């Protein structure tokens, strides 16, 4: 019997494309496409440990610190719902 199609490693699992206001993600394991807003995109891409230059292209709105943390919590929940990885909370 031949090889079972391999489970791709995390860093090979996703193709993505970013614009200033978010990013599109293609999951090679499930065939699903996801659209992420800027906050979710930042968390997701940091989780994949992509180069900072990629993340810098996203334009995050300027908001207060307490708003920022609640927005990040929302983004984390969204990623969880989509079963996408996120950078661990710092």
């Amino acid at each position: 019997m031949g090889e079972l199609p391999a489970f791709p490693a995390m860093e090979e699992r996703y193709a993505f494309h970013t614009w200033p206001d978010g990013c599109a993600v293609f999951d090679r394991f499930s065939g699903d496409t996801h659209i992420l807003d800027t906050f979710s995109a930042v968390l997701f891409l940091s989780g994949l440990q992509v180069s900072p230059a990629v993340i810098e292209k996203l334009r995050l709105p300027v908001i207060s610190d307490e708003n920022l943390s609640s927005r990040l919590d929302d983004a984390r929940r969204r990623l969880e719902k989509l079963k996408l990885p996120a950078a661990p909370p710092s």
Partner: protein
Amino acid sequence: MTQSCGKLLLDAVRTPAMAVTLDLRSWDDLLRLARRANLISRLAEGIDQAGVLNKLPAPVRPHLIAASALAQHQRRAVIWETRHIGTALSALGIPIVLLKGAAYSMAGLQAATGRLYGDVDILVPATRINEVEAALMLHGWSAGHVDAYDNRYYRRWMHELPPMVNIKRGTVVDVHHNILPLTARNHPSAEKLLAASLALPEAPFHVLSPCDMVIHCATHLFHEGELNNGLRDLFDLDALVQEYAENDASFWTTLPERAKELDLEWPLRLAFRYLERFLGTRIPEQAKTSVKQSPILASLRDVMYLPGFLPDHPLCSGYRSFLARGLLYLRGHYLRMPLRLLAWHLGRKAFIRLYKNKSRSC
């Protein structure tokens, strides 16, 4: 015409390298035949593997590229879909035996090359089928558009649940508890098949053992009411036996023994006959003699099957192939259910067709 069109298709799929010798007019026929027989992707991927795509006439190439794209997608998609099914059923803790295309793809078998898929078929223990149905429904599958009659018919007589459709993706899973209906003349023991199945590295999936997979493919092929995918299934069989025989020297001895054990010798006999006849598959003498039957019966079958295997395409359709197709439809149903039930079932099908047509008129 009939003979030569069949030969063109068979030669090209069997020996893709010969495709470079075909002229445009032959391609015009070949692409249409291959599409109709559901073999165009196998042809395209064969040509790709033989590395001759760029030597073919320019107008032909886009069609083969399109067919390859479709085949690659379907191979990926069936794996994605199978994984979704696995997620839905993993909590039940039972082995999910993949059948047909999903099994070929997940086990990485040669038979998966260029194959186009319809549904994902799975085999589960009969005693757990209600739990499987419930778990699938919980995860977004529902019984598709089946009327009350069909639903009762499936549940009472068939070896499977009515097809279940995923609401989000529109994909279909067929849940079987046996490989043949309860009404069929031979009903093999599903327990034996499950017991011999092999676990894949990706839980909870299993596949049938090599011999059982071949026997199932043959049984399915010759129990089908229609041979629309007859040639494609025959190519599947060819790929399976070749790959297994290469990996296991005792394969040709154990295969007929297993068929006898499962009371499914006759489909294997037919499979051998038509593999040799159509595809020139090399099958050892001793394997053939262990499942032999009388020459008279064999030639009777040929009248039915030979034209039926050719694609149902205007290029191939003669009166004989039309007749053979009608006979096959009846025969497929005869094998699956007792005659009295059959007449009732066919009568109802014909009635529904008429009725539905009428309700569509405006």
